[in-house]
Each structure stands twice: as structure tokens, then as C-alpha cells.
């Protein structure tokens, strides 16, 4: 196990370096930030001056060399847009994203597994039909619909929760609820599908033949067998959230990493783009490692 983790760390480190190099050069292909920062009327001299200040006149390899040198001394550059260290900007945003993703995914996982397993236990039954129907609608409806309608109804009309912001626990209810819906629908469907195969497998039939009751069969034997694809999909959804929940961040004024990344890409704020990819990529790599380890825990036959 230890060798596995060590090897994995090395491989992931290499991927991270590859990713950063790739992003560094590819992002420079998307144009020069100068005209985006300066007013459209800015003179050619002020443009030239801007490029000089931000080192945009150097050949790209020189720029890369400077960047690599700075990163090695843990300096990730300054955000042009915010005139602050890029890493600081990203970490502030990422702490919000991480909390939001963790809270939401925890709720989603528990709810989707329970409802998915119950739906699978009686395929075609009333509960199955209802759960499938609503989870599919939730998973395929545009998320801003749900967000705006929720604000209009729960905040403006009923006045139960604030429209947006981050101040108190009450502020978190709507964003988490909106963010909950899509992964819930998707994971519920995967749990259900995986459980159906699992319940008809020889393994579960054996347990049943041994006289194990229906509940332990569903929640222990079958579920454990069905968990591998489920965990993978949970990981994929969590990764999506770690990259930022743009709609929720935009609508509810959550200062997360998703909107930061989009703004930085559109504004060609390369230092922030690179720093945020580095942070989110590390989080995603670690999460994927944990998922791979959990395969081995859930299914002892899988060894690395």
C-alpha cells in the first residue's frame, strides 16, 4: 500500500507539472491581456508600458523560465487584475469552494445511496417510479431555473431565507439545495442501476439462500458490491464541484473558485488561472487517490 501511494504521488506530481506546462503555453495562445485591462482608448505608449510592467514583451520561453523559477521559490506571481498574490486570491476562493463541495457531496452521497437502494429494491414499484422521475427532472433541468425560482419563492415571497450571501448558516441553505439536485439525480440513477445488477448476482442470491433478511441484503451485501461505479461517479461530481459551481457562485454571490477561474480566463489573468488550476488539480488528484484506495477497501480482491 505504501509503495502504491509513493508511486502514485510521483506519477501525480509529473502529471501536475505536465498540466501546468500545458496550460502555461496554451493559455498564451489566447491573446494578450493588454487590451482587456486598459481602456479601449488607451494610447499605444500606455499599451507598451503595460506590457513592459507585466513582462509580456519577453519571448514566451523567457516568460516560462521566469515563471518556473518563481514557482520553485513558491512565488506564484501576482494577479494582474487584483494586484495581489495569485495564490492568496485562489486560496481564499478555494476555501469557500471546498466547504461548499464537502457539505453538498456529503448530503448528496447519503441521500442518493439511501433513495437509490430503496428504488432498486422494488424495481418498477411506486417508490422507484417517483424517485426516478424526480431525480431525472432534477438532473436535467437548467440549474439557474431552480436557483432563481427558489430565490423568488423562498426569499422574496416567503422571506424564510436570505436571497444570497455568505453571512450565516441560513445563507447556505439555498446554494447547497440548488447544488444538491443534479449530482443527486445522477448518483441516484447509478446506485439504482448498479444495485439492480448486484441484487441479481450470484453473490446476493447466495446470501439470500443463507437466510439473510432483505434489509441487510440491500444495505450490506448488494450495496457493497455495487459501490465501485457509484464511488467513481461521486468522485466525478465532486471534481466538477471542486472546479467551481459557477451558476451557484454567480447567483448567490458565493466567492468561490469557479467564477474566479472563468473571470481570470476571460481576462487573461494567467497567474490566477495557473494558480487555481494547480490548487484544484491537487485536490482532484488527492480525491482520485482516495477513491482508488477505497476500491481496495470495498473489494479486497482488488489489489494494487
Amino acid at each position, binding site marked *: 500500500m505504501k509503495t502504491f501511494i509513493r508511486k502514485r504521488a510521483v506519477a501525480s506530481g509529473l502529471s501536475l507539472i505536465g498540466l501546468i506546462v500545458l496550460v502555461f503555453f496554451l493559455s498564451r*495562445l489566447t491573446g494578450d491581456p493588454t487590451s482587456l485591462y486598459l481602456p479601449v482608448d488607451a494610447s499605444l505608449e500606455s499599451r507598451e508600458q503595460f506590457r513592459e510592467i507585466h513582462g509580456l514583451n519577453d519571448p514566451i520561453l523567457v516568460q516560462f523560465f521566469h515563471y518556473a523559477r518563481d514557482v520553485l521559490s513558491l512565488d506564484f506571481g501576482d494577479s494582474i487584475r487584483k494586484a495581489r498574490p495569485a495564490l492568496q486570491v485562489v486560496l481564499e476562493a478555494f476555501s469557500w469552494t471546498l466547504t461548499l463541495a464537502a457539505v453538498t457531496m456529503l448530503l448528496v452521497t447519503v441521500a442518493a445511496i439511501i433513495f437509490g437502494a430503496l428504488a432498486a429494491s422494488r424495481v418498477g414499484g411506486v417508490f422507484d417510479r417517483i424517485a426516478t422521475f424526480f431525480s431525472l427532472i432534477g438532473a436535467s433541468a437548467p440549474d439557474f431555473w431552480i436557483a432563481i425560482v427558489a430565490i423568488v419563492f423562498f426569499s422574496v415571497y416567503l422571506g424564510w431565507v436570505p436571497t444570497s450571501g455568505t453571512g450565516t448558516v441560513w445563507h447556505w441553505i439555498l446554494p447547497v439545495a440548488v447544488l444538491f439536485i443534479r449530482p443527486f439525480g445522477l448518483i441516484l440513477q447509478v446506485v439504482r442501476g448498479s444495485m439492480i445488477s448486484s441484487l441479481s448476482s450470484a453473490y446476493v442470491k447466495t446470501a439470500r439462500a443463507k437466510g439473510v433478511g432483505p434489509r441487510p441484503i440491500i444495505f450490506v451485501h448488494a450495496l457493497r458490491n455495487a459501490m465501485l461505479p457509484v464511488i467513481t461517479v461521486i468522485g466525478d461530481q465532486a471534481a466538477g464541484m471542486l472546479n467551481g459551481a459557477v451558476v451557484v457562485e454567480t447567483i448567490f454571490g458565493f466567492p468561490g473558485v469557479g467564477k474566479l477561474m472563468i473571470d481570470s480566463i476571460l481576462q487573461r489573468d494567467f497567474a490566477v488561472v495557473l494558480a487555481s488550476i494547480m490548487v484544484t488539480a491537487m485536490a482532484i488528484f488527492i480525491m482520485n487517490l482516495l477513491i482508488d484506495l477505497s476500491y481496495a477497501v470495498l473489494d479486497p480482491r482488488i489489489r494494487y
Partner: protein
Amino acid sequence: MTETTPDVPSAAGQSRFRRLAAMLWADKFALVAMIFLIVVLLCAILGPMLLDNLATRQNLRGRNAPPFDLTRGWAFVLGADALGRPLLARIIVAARNTIMVAAGAVACSLLIGAALGLVAGYSRRGLSQAIMRLADVIMSFPSLLMAVIVLYMLSASVTNLIIVLAITRIPIYLRTTRAEVLELRERMFVQAALVMGASARRIVFRHILPMVLPTLLTIATLDFAFVMLAESSLSFLGIGIQPPEITWGLMVSQGRPYLTHAWWLSFWPGLAIILTTLSLNLLSNWMRVALDPAQRWRLEMGKKND
């Protein structure tokens, strides 16, 4: 819940097609889903030919006309958009681009992802490691950045749009396939086939793939909705479908500012996306049962089990 699998009724005298049709008839939800999808496909094929003029003719004075008003003709039964164009006609015409992009992107990512996942799951060490780290990299690469890069390097086109969307969705199929293969590989029947000297190819395609496919299809049907909606956010950047061309996703996002004032602008195209996804999912659930010999009884026994 039946404890034992009843005998599968004899298939003698029934053609395979008729048997499938009977099973479809047995599941009314799947039947409706099938009919809906055929209608969508017909719209996609014929819509642009028949209704293009009607769908693009603007009328600023009749903008945001409310739905369920037949005085202006059948095309306006769902109301009119911000430029006074009939929503129903536009949804029908938009079906072609929408289906092309969504089907293209989902199919590409499913095929590539599943193939890589099979390889990564079945082969050991080096190659597997390389593929999985590649998936990590793609997962961490912001799709928007990829879109902006493609936009700058290549021209905006449906093909490029499909490429961008497909690449970003590969990891989920890849990782899911691999996870299933890791487990299936250790199962009894695969080990048995191995002992009996089956080739790797035979094991992967005959034994493992059919077991992985249902999960992949479940994800793929839901990804349809995701891709349809994601596509519209890329249109915003100028990549892919551009007005006056139209997709459901673009219609949904163009209706966004009107959500609280003229809900129908984004509601109907959104409903089209939901219904398509719902139908695909119901149909894939039905297929999973119909194609699985161990579960086919659920359909062939009809209502007796409910």
C-alpha cells in the same frame, strides 16, 4: 419480490423483433419514451427544411407573446421569443443542431472513455497508470479554457464544439469503466473464462463489456442533458452554435433574463431537454432489462409482479 427466476417463456415462433416489441408494449413508460424520441428525431431531420422561414421571421411588435394563444397560428401556441419568433417552430428547428451536438459529444466521449477505461482496467501497471493520470489532467483542465483555446486556434464550428465537449466528458466514462473492470476481472465467470483459455479480447468484449454497459448508458443519458446545457454556455463565448443558428441550450440561456417576466422563453426549450433526457433514460432502463436474460422476466411476466 420473487425468490426464484421464473422460466423464460419459450421464444419459439416469435421473431426477435416481435418479442422486443411485445416487451416494449409491456412497459408503457418505455413505449411513450420511444415515441417521443422518434418525434424528436423526425423534427431534427425534417424541421429545418419545413419550418426554417417561420422560425426565423422576426416581429419586434409581437415579442414575448404569451403561450396558449391560437389567434396567431399554431406555431405560436407556445408563445413567442424576445424577437417575436414562434417558440414551437424554433424548438422544432433547433432539434437538429441540439441532437447533433449532444449525440456527437456523448457518443465520442462514451466510446473513447470506455475504450481507454477497458484498457486501463484490464492491463496492469505502466499503461494503466499513464491513462489514469491523463484522465486526472483532463478532469483538472477547465473546459472553458479549452473552449477559449480552441476558439483562438481553430474556427468555431459544430465539429470543434463536439470535440471540446467530448474531451471534457471523457474522464467520467473512463473512470467508471475502469472501476467496474477492476471488480469484474476478479469475478468467478471471468476467472473461469481465463482458465478455459479465452483470449483477452474475448473476455473484454464478451464478458466484461456487457456488464459495464448499463452503468455507462445510465450516465450517458443524463450527460445528454448536461451537454445540451453546457453547449449554450460555450455559445456565449462565440464557439460553436451562433445566432441566428439555434439550439435548445441557447434558447434556454437566451430566455434567462426573462425568467421572472416571460417564463415561457426558457421553459419550453428546457422542457424539451428534460423530456428528451427522461425518455432516453427510461428507454435505457427498459433496454437494460430487455437485453438481460436474467431480468427479462420482469417485462415478459407483465403486471403479475407489480
